[in-house]
């Protein structure tokens, strides 16, 4: 029988032991590690490269979706969550499965079978970009950014952002002492940041209103950090609207 490895990520110890207990019935699935938050989860996944993870959504500091965003090539995911079915509906199409707590042994077995079929049938792992994307769509406005820096996970308050810059498939997030990269689009940030506080002044730039020092019309805005950011025609119009000029 084919062997599988897994990692369990949940902040509640009893919830983890329940998954471990249910997994006893499957001699071909080995639990590599149990993690109590997303940071540990990121490390454990990098270390063990498991076939599948059991992932809780509400966890300290960074939630399950934010953790998934940080992983380059995520394994198959089974969400284990007390979130109501409605909130999870959005992911149904893309997630391998989700188990609503408290779940029965039978329901758990079904999820495992589904997972084994999926993993066995194709070499490709499920399309997690689509999963993360659907998480983005239903998500409310951003209140912070979770980024990876070297091997560490950093939670960035929106306050710290000096400006955002498009950079190929990535976005450069500029702060006072650091530049972080995140695989996202400009449109994503434009839609998920409050338009009153963050203004898309250019196809490739979003700036926080509080960082504006001076406007040098019609082509530039000068930030408090001294950075000169180009602005487009529509960007200038937006800027005028937000600042009430």
């Amino acid at each position, binding site marked *: 029988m084919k062997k599988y490895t897994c990692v369990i990520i949940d*902040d509640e*110890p009893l919830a983890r032991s*329940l998954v471990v207990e249910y997994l006893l019935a499957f001699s071909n699935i080995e639990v590599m590690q149990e993690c109590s938050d997303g940071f540990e989860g990121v490390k454990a996944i990098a270390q063990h490269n498991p076939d599948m993870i059991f992932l809780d959504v509400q966890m300290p*500091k960074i939630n399950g979706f934010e953790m998934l965003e940080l992983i380059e090539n995520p394994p198959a995911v089974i969400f284990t969550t007390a979130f109501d079915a409605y909130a999870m509906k959005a992911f149904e199409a893309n997630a391998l499965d989700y188990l*609503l707590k*408290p779940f029965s042994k039978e329901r758990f077995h079904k999820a495992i079978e589904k997972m084994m079929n999926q993993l066995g049938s194709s070499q490709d792992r499920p399309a997690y970009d689509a999963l993360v994307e659907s998480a983005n769509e239903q998500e409310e406005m951003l209140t912070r950014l979770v980024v990876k820096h070297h091997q560490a996970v950093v939670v960035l308050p929106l306050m710290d952002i000096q400006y955002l810059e498009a950079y190929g498939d990535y976005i450069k997030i500029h702060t006072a002492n650091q530049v972080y990269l995140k695989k996202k689009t400009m449109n994503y940030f434009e839609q998920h940041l409050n338009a009153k506080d963050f203004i898309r002044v250019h196809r490739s730039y979003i700036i926080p209103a509080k960082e504006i020092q001076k406007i040098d019309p019609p082509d530039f805005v000068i930030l408090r950090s001294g950075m000169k950011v180009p602005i487009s025609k529509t960007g200038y119009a937006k800027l005028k609207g937000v600042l009430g000029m």
Partner: protein
Amino acid sequence: MLMHIYLLVDFGVDPKIAVVDSFITHFIFALTSFIIYITLKYYQPSKENFFYIRIWALLLAIGNTFVIVNALQYIYASEADYQSLLSKSIALRFCYQILMVATITLIQWLGNYMLEQQSDGDRKQQSESFTKEAELYNLRQQLQPHFLFNSLNSISSLAGSRPEEARKMIQQLSEFLRHTLRKDEKQLITLEEELYQLNLYLEIEKVRFGNRLKSVVILDENCEKLLLPVLVLQPLVENAIKFGLYDTLGEVEIVIQSKCMDGKWLQISISNPFDPSTHAQNTGTGFGIDSIKRRLYLLYANNDLVQIEMKENLFLVRINIPQT
């Protein structure tokens, strides 16, 4: 009516004719009054439309005078003296009619208006108290489904490995739920009782989160019998736990402290660790604190009973309950 007869006789009219004249005048007037009463009963014009009432009263007065004079002219067509008096008195009769009709209309309208105002006020008061009741009820019922489902999941886990503890947790959860769900005829309970319920909640959360969650209750024994609205502390502690556990890593200590201020106030503070750098995300207070603020306002009509303090890594909520 008698005055009407007396006046006519004084003017040299035959007393018999004077009686009929008076009778017709007042019969018509009574009829008009009745029409006014019926009309206003079914259609009470607003203050803005009062102008129309005046027009209406004027038309009625004209109509009345016309009918009365014509009737009298017809009945006593042969009495020349009376006829001349009649035509001379048309203006006077009209003035008399308009005065009476206007007075009756005004009295009737005012009466209706006042009745309406009163029932309006009653209804408003009633709906206000009803809304307040419903809102208070809802605010009390803010039980997080998240808490419930995660607790049930913990029980499910314990049932396999440690059945005795599972049983204990079921009992604690049930007792806690019973307390939350009870329909409150009694709004206020003693601090002692509230803390007992709170402890059930804390025990359940500690089973869920294991060693991560610690709690300290500092109780001034003099306060035990002081009163506070039922289920005020639990949402605040729930908030503190959620904040503490999801905003930080590692161990979380929730401190609940009570003080009585000269027996006039019961002050309770609840603190939890938090991370000031990522705190901005929570836009300040959170639903738990807002709903308690609202409840205390509805109960005590005071908006300053809940205070929030942030010191370094400590988030503190303080509530003051007046004792009467």
